[in-house]
């Protein structure tokens, strides 16, 4: 446990320091959401209707932005070799890295959501519904994205490839995330889509670390 805690602490520390990815993700999220009203126009009713979708897309793109650093940075400086050799199972090390990435880059997005909800004319209930679905859904984005990040390391300089690999995998999360938010806003049943969203996250907790570790093991050279 000490080893995993040390890995999580280190990754969060790096992400929060100058040059780390945590703040960049939030700023990107802010920029995407602020740009939307300019593109859609000053129609408040339309913004309210699109609000959850815009917030979800912004969070998806923002989490993708910093995801390629997940393994690439460790690969480039040789840390990944030592992590693979270590006594900690690689699957657990991958899960710890993804958890650290979510804490440093995903959680700030959820904290920023209430502020951005104001810009999209969402009321308190809608904003908290979106924040809740993001809380349940963004871990799935990180843990499935981790598979893409591991493949990108394997394929050398695959940073751009990451977006192409990961975005299709995030479609189910996006569908049920937005559906659950819309359901809460329009008074439909919130439970069903939200449960599926939670299920997607739980499945990704299991599959993500194993797939990423397998990809890293086969790709090292």
């Amino acid at each position: 446990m000490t080893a995993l805690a040390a890995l999580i602490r280190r990754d969060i520390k790096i992400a929060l320091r100058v040059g780390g990815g945590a703040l960049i993700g939030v700023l990107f999220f802010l920029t995407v959401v602020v740009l939307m009203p300019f593109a859609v126009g000053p129609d408040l009713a339309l913004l309210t209707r699109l609000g959850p979708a815009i917030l979800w897309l912004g969070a998806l793109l923002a989490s993708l932005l910093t995801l390629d650093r997940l393994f690439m940075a460790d690969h480039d400086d040789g840390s990944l070799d030592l992590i693979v050799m270590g006594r900690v199972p690689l699957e657990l090390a991958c899960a710890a890295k993804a958890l650290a990435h979510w804490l440093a880059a995903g959680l700030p997005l959820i904290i920023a959501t209430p502020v951005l909800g104001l810009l999209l004319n969402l009321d308190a209930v809608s904003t908290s519904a979106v924040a809740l679905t993001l809380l349940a859904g963004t871990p799935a984005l990180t843990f499935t994205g981790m598979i893409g990040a591991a493949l990108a390391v394997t394929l050398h300089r695959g940073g751009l490839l990451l977006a192409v690999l990961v975005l299709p995998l995030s479609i189910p999360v996006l569908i049920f995330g937005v559906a659950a938010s819309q359901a809460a806003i329009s008074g439909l049943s919130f439970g069903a889509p939200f449960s599926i969203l939670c299920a997607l996250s739980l499945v990704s907790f299991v599959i993500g670390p194993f797939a990423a570790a397998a990809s890293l093991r086969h790709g090292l050279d």
Partner: protein
Amino acid sequence: MRLLGRGVRCVRGGREVFCDLDFEACSGEVLAVTGPNGSGKTSLLRMIAGLLTMAGGSIGLEGGETELTLPEQAHYLGHRDALKPALSVMENLSFWRDFLGGEAFDARQSLAAVGLDHAAQLPAAYLSAGQRRRLSLARLLAARRPVWLLDEPTSALDAAGQTMFAALMGDHLSRGGLIIAATHAPLGLATRELRIGGAA
């Protein structure tokens, strides 16, 4: 403890680098792997560390801890030094000590042993190449492993650094460790030599 390689074959990018390589190293010994550039010295070390798959042959450790695999009992010191520029010298070293686990030692003493204790709070981004190498060497001391796999360990070290490193290796050997080092320069210790790619 004895590290044994039999009939090891290495293929990189479809080209055979070496084949039928036999080697062994016992406790208290240094095996120096020499050979021209591109002869597969780094590949051999990475195979022993389990970071590269062998095209044939076997590598095993006799008399180590039975619960652990060979890579789990080895330190690998490669060209890339596994340091994070955003973290301080001390943070880098403590992280590796905690992550690698096993019998751990005081990070400050390890830093002192490689002559970096004055720079403990400095971000690793400001270290020179020689200081980065010294910090990597401190990692070998902070978490104990019986097998050291060293790839050009003395590169970027000054004369004092090389003497210091020879003493550290001597300590490690006297505790029953074994060292396999790919090197061009003499290590300053009595060594057994494994020459690969002899044609050049």
